[in-house]
C-alpha cells in the first residue's frame, strides 16, 4: 500500500479518543488494589494474632517494605506507559529499594538468636503455602497492569514489564501480610523473595509478548 493512501485511510478512520493520563491509570490501579484488599479482609483472612503482631518490628518491616516496593514499582510502570518515558532509571531505584529492605530485614534478624536453625526456620510446608497464596494474590495486579500496558505505549516493553511484575508481586505480598502469621525475617526474606521473583519473572516473560504494538 502506498503511504499516501494509508494516511488517507487513517485520516478517514480518525475518531475522538479519551486521553490517557498517569492519574487515570493510577486511579484504576488503586481502585483494583482497594477492591482486592477489601475482599481479602472481608473474607476474614486477617491473622488471628493481629493486635500482638502489630507490636513486632518484623511485621511493620514486611508491611512497609512491600508497600513501598509496590508503590514505587507501580509508579515506574505507569510512568513508562508514556512513549517518551523509559523505565530504566526507575528500575534502578526499585533495585536499590529492595536491597535496602532486605538489609533492614537482616539487621532485625541479626538481633535474634543466631543462624543455627536456619532450615527449621524455613518451615517448608508453610513456606510453600505462603508462596502459592502470594502468587494468586498478585494475579489481579498482573492482569490490571497488563491491560494498562496494552492501552499505553511503552517504548521499552521489557523494562515496563519488569516494573509491572515487581509492582504486582509486591502488591500480592503486601495483601498477604495481613494474613501471614510468620514474622521471622529469614522466613519472610526467603519465601516472599521466591514468590515475588516467580511473579516478576512470569510477568517479565509474558507481558512484552502480549503488549506488542
Amino acid at each position, binding site marked *: *500500500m502506498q*503511504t499516501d493512501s*494509508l*494516511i488517507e485511510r*487513517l485520516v478517514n*478512520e*480518525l475518531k475522538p*479518543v*479519551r*486521553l*490517557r*493520563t498517569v492519574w487515570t491509570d493510577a486511579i484504576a490501579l488503586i481502585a483494583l488494589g482497594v477492591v482486592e484488599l477489601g475482599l481479602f479482609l472481608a473474607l476474614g483472612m486477617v491473622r488471628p494474632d493481629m493486635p500482638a503482631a502489630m507490636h513486632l518490628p518484623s511485621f511493620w518491616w514486611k508491611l512497609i517494605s512491600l508497600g513501598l516496593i509496590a508503590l514505587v514499582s507501580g509508579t515506574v510502570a505507569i510512568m513508562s*506507559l*508514556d*512513549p*517518551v518515558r523509559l523505565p530504566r532509571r526507575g528500575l534502578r531505584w526499585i533495585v536499590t529499594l529492595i536491597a535496602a529492605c532486605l538489609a533492614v530485614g537482616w539487621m532485625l534478624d541479626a538481633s535474634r538468636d543466631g543462624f543455627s536453625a536456619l532450615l527449621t526456620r524455613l518451615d517448608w510446608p508453610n513456606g510453600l503455602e505462603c508462596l502459592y497464596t502470594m502468587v494468586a494474590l498478585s494475579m489481579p495486579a498482573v492482569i490490571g497492569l497488563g491491560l494498562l500496558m496494552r*492501552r*499505553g*505505549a511503552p*517504548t521499552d516493553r521489557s523494562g515496563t514489564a519488569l516494573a509491572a511484575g515487581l509492582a504486582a508481586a509486591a502488591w500480592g505480598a503486601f495483601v498477604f501480610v495481613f494474613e501471614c502469621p510468620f514474622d521471622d525475617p529469614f522466613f519472610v526474606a526467603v519465601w516472599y523473595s521466591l514468590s515475588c521473583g516467580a511473579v516478576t519473572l512470569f510477568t517479565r516473560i509474558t507481558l512484552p509478548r502480549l503488549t506488542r*504494538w
Partner: protein
Amino acid sequence: MWLRRYYTGRLPPVAIDDAIQEALIAVHKKRHTYDPSRPFGAWLAAIARYKWIDAARSLGAKPTEVLSDDIAVPDHEEAIVSARSLDQLLTTLKPAQSQVIRLVKLQGLSIEEASKATGQSAALVKVNIHRGLKRLTSLLRSVSDAD
C-alpha cells in the same frame, strides 16, 4: 517527510517504506497517549525510535541465504568481445547494409520480414546482405594480412 528522513540511513532502503507505515499506524493507534501540553516532536520521535528498533530486530531475525556457486554464470568474455567487434565492423558498412545484416543474420528475421521492417524490396535486402558480408570479409582479410 520527517519520518522518511529519520529512517534514511538507519534502515536499508527496502525497509524504509514499511517502517514509515508502521510508525504512522502506531501514531494513529496510540494517539490517546499524546499529551497536547507537551511537544509533539518528542512524542513522535519516541514512537519512530521504537518502530526503528522493531524493524531492525525483524531484519536481523530474517534468515539470510548464502548464494550457491551454481548461480554464477560461465565466463562469457569471448562472446562480449565478439559482439563488440562485430558491432564496430558493422559501423564501417553503409547503413542499409548493416541494418539488414543485423535483422536477418543476427536477429533471425526472414527476408520478407526484413523487407517490411526496412522498406527495402526483398531483392534489395538480399543484395545488401550479400554486398555487406563481402565487404566485411575483405575487411577481415586485410586486417589478418596486416597482422
